[in-house]
């Protein structure tokens, strides 16, 4: 009470000064007009533990320095110390939003090294799980991107769709999140008719539900104006910075490894590679929406063409036998023992195998000297490389656009930090 009484003369003095037309206030800014803002690593809009140091002039971003490493777990060092089979669960934790495509990418790299080919049914199933993983990853991106610019409903709707996918994963692999489904030379278990039915239902229902989300956003003035023309990157800059995946295709470069270097059975699938011009946040939104529709096309074809047969390559010395056989048959027990204890026999050599993961080119470089563990394994993670384009995209943007631009790159720190 005393203080307010005490303040009255001061207040009247300030009011008096403001009323006076000739008053002008001048102050020296010790930091000049620049401000350094630290975003993250514990920031809800940086999608994980990404830390950004942003230099601001007023509200305009002058420059930014991303700091990585808060989720560094040393997977490349771990890979050198465990057998090829033992590393499969670790791949779940790289891009934890699409563990199924990581599993597939990794086992395909090992298969290329060891000279194993998975049987046709396994190849088709791998295409199916890779596309389901792509849709689930893009759905999470869609929800969070819309939420980053203030649209909450889409988040609920896309998570509802994602939940259905996770139910499929649970029935198919036994786990919702950390699937570890692929095996060297095959898959952990076959698809049951029940799961096939679930996927068919999903294929039927999903396009209409995606259209609902699109209706909410495509003509939403707030969403379009918040994303249009921000975070622009040109095709030349993107290629120079090694950007891949939807981010590159949204700049107008038609580069998709599923089409350029078809692996698995992608050469038998009829699908388009959508490309958008502009290279801004809105183009990346359209890009991913179209990619989900193309994924549905691939899924439908793969389900229709899915052949019957084995899901394990007929190489008992390299491919883990089914658990049921291990318990009942001598030969399989011996192979299981040898494979678990001494690993897959690989020749001396080096390979690099890349697949089109939801975020871009996911590659595994393996240098083997013929032992059960790789001598060196490098994970080329798309999020790590795509994030390098962030300072360029942010330059000149407004502070309120920063979260929208980060979201549009779709980084996952699990794989960026390895």
């Amino acid at each position, binding site marked *: 009470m005393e203080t307010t009484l005490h303040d009255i003369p001061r207040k009247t003095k300030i009011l008096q000064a403001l009323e006076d037309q000739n008053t002008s206030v001048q102050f020296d800014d010790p930091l000049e007009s620049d401000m350094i803002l630290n975003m993250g690593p514990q920031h809800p809009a940086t999608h994980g533990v990404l830390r950004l140091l942003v230099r601001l002039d007023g509200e305009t971003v002058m420059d930014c320095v991303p700091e*990585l*490493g808060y989720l*560094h777990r*040393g997977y*490349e*060092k*771990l890979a050198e*110390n465990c057998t090829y089979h033992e590393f499969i669960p670790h791949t779940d934790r790289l891009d934890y939003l699409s563990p199924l495509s990581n599993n597939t990418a990794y086992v395909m790299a090992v298969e*290329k*090294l060891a*000279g194993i080919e998975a049987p046709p049914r396994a190849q088709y199933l791998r295409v199916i799980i890779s596309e389901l993983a792509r849709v689930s990853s893009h759905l999470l991106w869609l929800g969070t991107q819309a939420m980053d610019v203030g649209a909450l409903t889409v988040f609920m709707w896309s998570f509802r769709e994602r939940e259905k996918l996770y139910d499929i994963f649970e029935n198919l692999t036994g786990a919702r999140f950390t699937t570890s489904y692929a095996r060297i030379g095959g898959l952990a278990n076959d698809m049951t008719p029940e799961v096939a039915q679930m996927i068919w239902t999903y294929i039927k229902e999903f396009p209409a539900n995606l259209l609902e989300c699109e209706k909410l956003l495509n003509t939403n003035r707030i969403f379009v104006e918040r994303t249009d023309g921000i975070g622009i990157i040109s095709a030349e*800059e993107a*290629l*120079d*910075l*090694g950007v*891949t995946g939807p981010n590159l295709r949204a700049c107008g*470069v038609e*580069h998709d490894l599923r089409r*350029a*270097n078809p692996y698995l059975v992608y050469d038998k699938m009829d699908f388009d590679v959508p490309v958008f011009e502009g290279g801004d946040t809105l183009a990346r939104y359209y890009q991913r929406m179209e990619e989900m529709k193309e994924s549905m096309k691939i899924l439908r074809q793969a389900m229709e063409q899915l052949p019957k047969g084995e899901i394990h390559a007929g190489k008992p010395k390299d491919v883990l036998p089914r658990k049921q056989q291990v318990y009942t048959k001598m030969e399989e027990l011996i192979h299981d023992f040898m494979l678990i204890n001494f690993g897959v026999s690989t020749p001396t*050599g*080096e*390979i*690099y195998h*890349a697949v089109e993961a939801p975020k871009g*080119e996911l*590659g595994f*470089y393996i*240098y083997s000297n013929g032992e059960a563990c790789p*001598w*060196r394994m*490098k994970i*080329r993670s798309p999020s*790590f*490389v795509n994030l*390098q384009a962030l300072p360029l995209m942010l330059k000149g943007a407004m502070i309120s656009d920063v979260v929208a631009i980060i979201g549009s790159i779709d980084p996952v720190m699990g794989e960026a*930090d*390895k």
Partner: protein
Amino acid sequence: MNQRILEKLRQQFGSAILESNEFRGELTVVVPKDRVVETCRFLKSDSELRFDLLADLCGIDMYTPAKRYGVIYNLYSLKNKHRIRLKTFTEEGDLKVPTVTGVWATANWHERETYDMFGIIFTGHPDLRRMYMPEEFEHYPLRKDFPLMGIPGSLPLPKK
């Protein structure tokens, strides 16, 4: 395609192509480290080859004194949809390798990561800092003489 690339490289660089091999259809070419930038520039700018995407750059510890550390460049050509791998080695005492950031900007973070993990110094790099580990960390974790369990005392811990 691999034969054609090798032919062109030999024509251009002659004896600077130290080694080459093909495994599972992938071509690996070894060049001395002082010719790396030149080779990369040629592979990128040649109108027939056009290796315009540096897909990956990483280090390797061979653990032999003559060629202890290596740097591996995985290149991709959008035009030919083809891959090639370039390699260079450095001796134990000399950790300097010229940077290729001038050829592909993406090499920036890849080289920082390689420096962080192996201690290879990329001469001419614009911002050679550690990528993942703290700046005051003294060791290079992916070297073969760094134990999997880590080195006690290498990271500051809270006092008792």
